[in-house]
């Protein structure tokens, strides 16, 4: 109300009165939450897809043509479901426990820093100097090459933005971009927003109907080679892979690398789960393969590295000439990222780099912690007759649930994929939410993902056990013929 001019004193008083009861932010959240709940309850019978379809005649200003067909986001859809149903949420990938103390403390301290008042003002657009220096030091060691922090690193508003500016900065309308399936769902719409044409190549399992590992999902070399053409600008590879958990081996990356070199293609490497590999696995960086530094973009994320997905900070590492396009896009869109967050992440990296190789280093401690959770979830899923694909990395697990799906009348829209309907049924009826993996497949290959459910296991043990109880009960009910 102080924003309102002096003339409107009465309004000022009225608004103050209205707000005086809403002091605590958590009350506001609850209020908003209730409000949203009410709205969702009222609209329950309508589709839970993101609101208006494009091209509604009631919309006087139709949305840009390139945004057509990419309105639906699985996150938006299932977050709305979670708000409505309030299930045990093993869907969207974020931890339900605290982020590491050092980065949280660092962020709080930024506001106290009287020495450097500029920490709350604009910083260098391509990346806060302290942060890019810390990243340069860490990745120079990791990639065994000297990385210039000022020329070869771009800091972005999350790996999402790294991917977005890579497409917009390098892909022209008509260029082809190969996407390996299953793919993190933003790759497809981002390629299309840039006017590119996605070409999908699936990873295929060697066997189903039993407990397997993500290593068994492979690319068919002939299928991959056939996907490259003289129009191919880039290939997007996510390793460790979301949702599969596959960690691409050196040999597999070399196969992709040979094709990239042959067809003069850029490798866009989404390596956000780089620190989350389990015993016996090594994360191999495409940029370190012979001949690949010059044509590889490597993307990382503070959200995944430090379990702070809400901080929305990521980076792109690569040779200066590949970064030139993405930098320009970044400069004229987000322009610069949040300074306090960059400072805190820099501090986090300085600490972790200093204790690299020790068990206290978060990059080692977190996967050690997660491996235990992974193994527990694998045994739970096996016990209840779902066949997990044991992931080599990442914090998601796919489970083959076809046998169970066949025994339940999940209802729902028959035009929707089986797994979408099953996940919604499980959320509404058993209060356990996952994510349907066919969301990570192209239209033509959705059948590969339809028999699975994706569960996130970066959650408190108590919640993983609760999920186990829910699934055990489901199994009992199925065996007893008791499922509605």
């Amino acid at each position, binding site marked *: 109300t102080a924003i309102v001019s002096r003339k409107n004193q009465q309004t000022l008083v009225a608004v103050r009165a209205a707000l005086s009861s809403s002091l605590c932010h958590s009350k506001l959240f609850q209020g908003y939450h209730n409000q949203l709940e009410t709205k969702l309850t009222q609209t329950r019978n309508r589709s839970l897809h993101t609101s208006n379809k494009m091209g509604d005649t009631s919309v006087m200003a139709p949305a840009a043509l390139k945004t057509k067909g990419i309105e639906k986001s699985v996150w938006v859809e299932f977050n709305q479901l979670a708000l409505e149903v309030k299930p045990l949420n093993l869907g969207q990938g974020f931890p339900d426990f605290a982020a590491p103390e050092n980065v949280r403390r660092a962020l709080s301290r930024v506001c106290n820093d009287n020495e450097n008042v500029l920490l709350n003002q604009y910083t260098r657009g*391509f990346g806060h100097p302290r942060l890019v220096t810390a990243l340069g030091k860490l990745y120079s060691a990791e990639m065994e090459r000297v990385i210039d922090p*000022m020329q070869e690193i771009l800091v972005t508003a999350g790996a999402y933005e790294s991917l977005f500016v890579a497409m917009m900065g390098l892909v022209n309308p008509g260029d082809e971009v190969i996407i390996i399936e299953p793919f993190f769902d933003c790759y497809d719409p981002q390629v299309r927003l840039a006017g590119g044409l996605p070409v999908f190549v699936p990873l295929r399992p060697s066997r189903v109907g039993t407990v397997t590992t993500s290593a068994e999902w492979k690319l068919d070399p002939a299928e991959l080679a056939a996907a490259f053409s003289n129009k191919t600008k880039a290939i997007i590879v996510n390793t460790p892979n979301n949702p599969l958990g596959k960690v691409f081996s050196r040999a597999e990356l070399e196969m992709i690398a040979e094709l990239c070199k042959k067809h003069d293609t850029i490798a866009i490497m989404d390596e956000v789960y780089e620190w989350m590999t389990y015993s016996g696995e090594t994360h191999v960086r495409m940029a370190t393969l012979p001949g690949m530094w010059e044509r590889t973009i490597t993307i990382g994320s503070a959200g995944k590295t430090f379990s702070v997905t*809400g901080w929305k900070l990521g980076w792109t590492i690569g040779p200066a000439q590949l970064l030139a396009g993405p930098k320009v896009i970044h400069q004229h869109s987000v322009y610069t990222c949040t300074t306090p967050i960059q400072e805190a992440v820099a501090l986090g990296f300085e600490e972790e780099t200093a204790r690299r190789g020790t068990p206290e280093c978060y990059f080692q401690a977190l996967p050690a912690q997660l491996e235990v959770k992974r193994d527990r979830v694998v045994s739970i899923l096996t016990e209840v007759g779902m066949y997990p694909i044991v992931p080599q990395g990442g914090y998601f697990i796919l489970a083959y649930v076809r046998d169970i799906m066949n025994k339940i009348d999940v209802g729902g829209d028959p035009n929707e994929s089986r797994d979408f309907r099953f996940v919604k049924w499980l959320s509404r009826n058993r209060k356990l939410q996952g994510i349907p993996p066919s969301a990570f497949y192209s239209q033509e290959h959705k059948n590969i993902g339809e028999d699975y459910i994706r569960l996130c296991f970066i959650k408190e043990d108590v919640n993983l056990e609760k999920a186990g109880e829910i699934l055990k009960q489901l199994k009992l009910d199925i065996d007893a013929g008791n499922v509605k």
Partner: protein
Amino acid sequence: ALDWRCFTQLGSNAIMKSARYFRSFPSRQVCRSRNVITTSFVRAMCQSSTITPTEPLKRPNVQRADRIASFSPNAFSHFSFLAEEFKAVNLAQGAPDWDIPEFVQRIGRESFSSSFAGPTIHQYSSHIGLPALNNVLVKIYEKLLNHSLDPVHDVLITNGAQDAIVAILQAFLNPGDEVVYMDPFFAAYPPMVTLVSGKSVCVPLRQSSKSLFAQDWTIDLKELDDAITDRTKILILNTPHNPTGKVFSRNELLAIAKIVRRHPNLIVLSDEVYENLVFDNLEHIRFATLPDMFDRTLTVSSASKSFSCTGWRIGWIIGPKDLINPIQLAHQWMSFCSAVPLQQAVASMLEESLKTTYFDDLRHDFQQMRDQLCNALQSAGIVPVIPSSGYFILGDFTKHRNKLSISPNERADLEFCGYLTREYGVAAIPASEFFSEESHQFAERFTRYSFCRTEKTLNE
């Protein structure tokens, strides 16, 4: 393409060979900075035995995407470097040089701490925004816009106002669509429009008499009317205006609304980031409050200017559901959501500011800074365009032009900025950066000075 707001942490290590550089501008050379950080860094890394030299490789044949092929470095970056080299008082940078307000510090400390806010404060929010922030924005803007608002459908949180603007452009512009805005403009508008393959159409905002005041700069309504055609998708209005500091009056905006009314499918993007920095007892008029304008106006603002926290990158768009929805959908693929602890902090700051005289005090302080710098410029023979809002003053240095040696290809404002920094230790920005090419002859008599500076800096 380092941008102009690069700053002090690069230190004197990042130095431009300024004199030689200015002679060669605007020959579009990318200037190499002698970056001592890199040199010592390289030396350090090479000492490690695990570093193997990389073999020379055939470079990929990569061009940047066509949509940005025409982009070239602008003059901005060099002035911060130049200011560093000559230890000049930096009036170039468009951000305050003081600390964030006390209450913002406190709220930041609390909001960034999960012991206060819970662990979810560090995880993803909805792509629409953190409910606490959307809610408080609705409460505030329902009063300001005199219209009911829904926190889910009528609001979107973005990574700063600049992200908001580019998201709007991404959501609505098809290749070749036109965007109309005034000239001079916030420097980011033209490249953002080009980025989405749109076309910029500028309408001059000019001094109408020998007046000293930004308030007396006007547009020709006929020119605006001619500029808006059925190819025009978006009209960007920026009030309070950057860089002149003009606050558009109700009558002026009503006249613009009359033109807008003749184009029922036109979207108005109202960039109001300086909404809380209006002085001289003027009133900030919100375009969305004018008759029939709510349904076609997207109101953009941010925390940066209101709370002196330009580094926090939290902005918002408020508008009718039909317009906000496509932007939410486009933005969900651009960066999905904004930094959550910062969203929480801004929500708390907005709430708190309503209970104090914070904005009144802010306006009062800014008005004093404006007065101080205007007086200083005047006494130096630089004629200020006295602003009624914002951060900046345009200063006409015509009286000093004879001191410069300007060759035909060079811009006088660029030369003057170099001269002022080298000879007198004050750094500013050449104003032609904010004007279209066609206007350069008019523009290059001005340079732009930031007055959002501590008293100490302004005294210096």
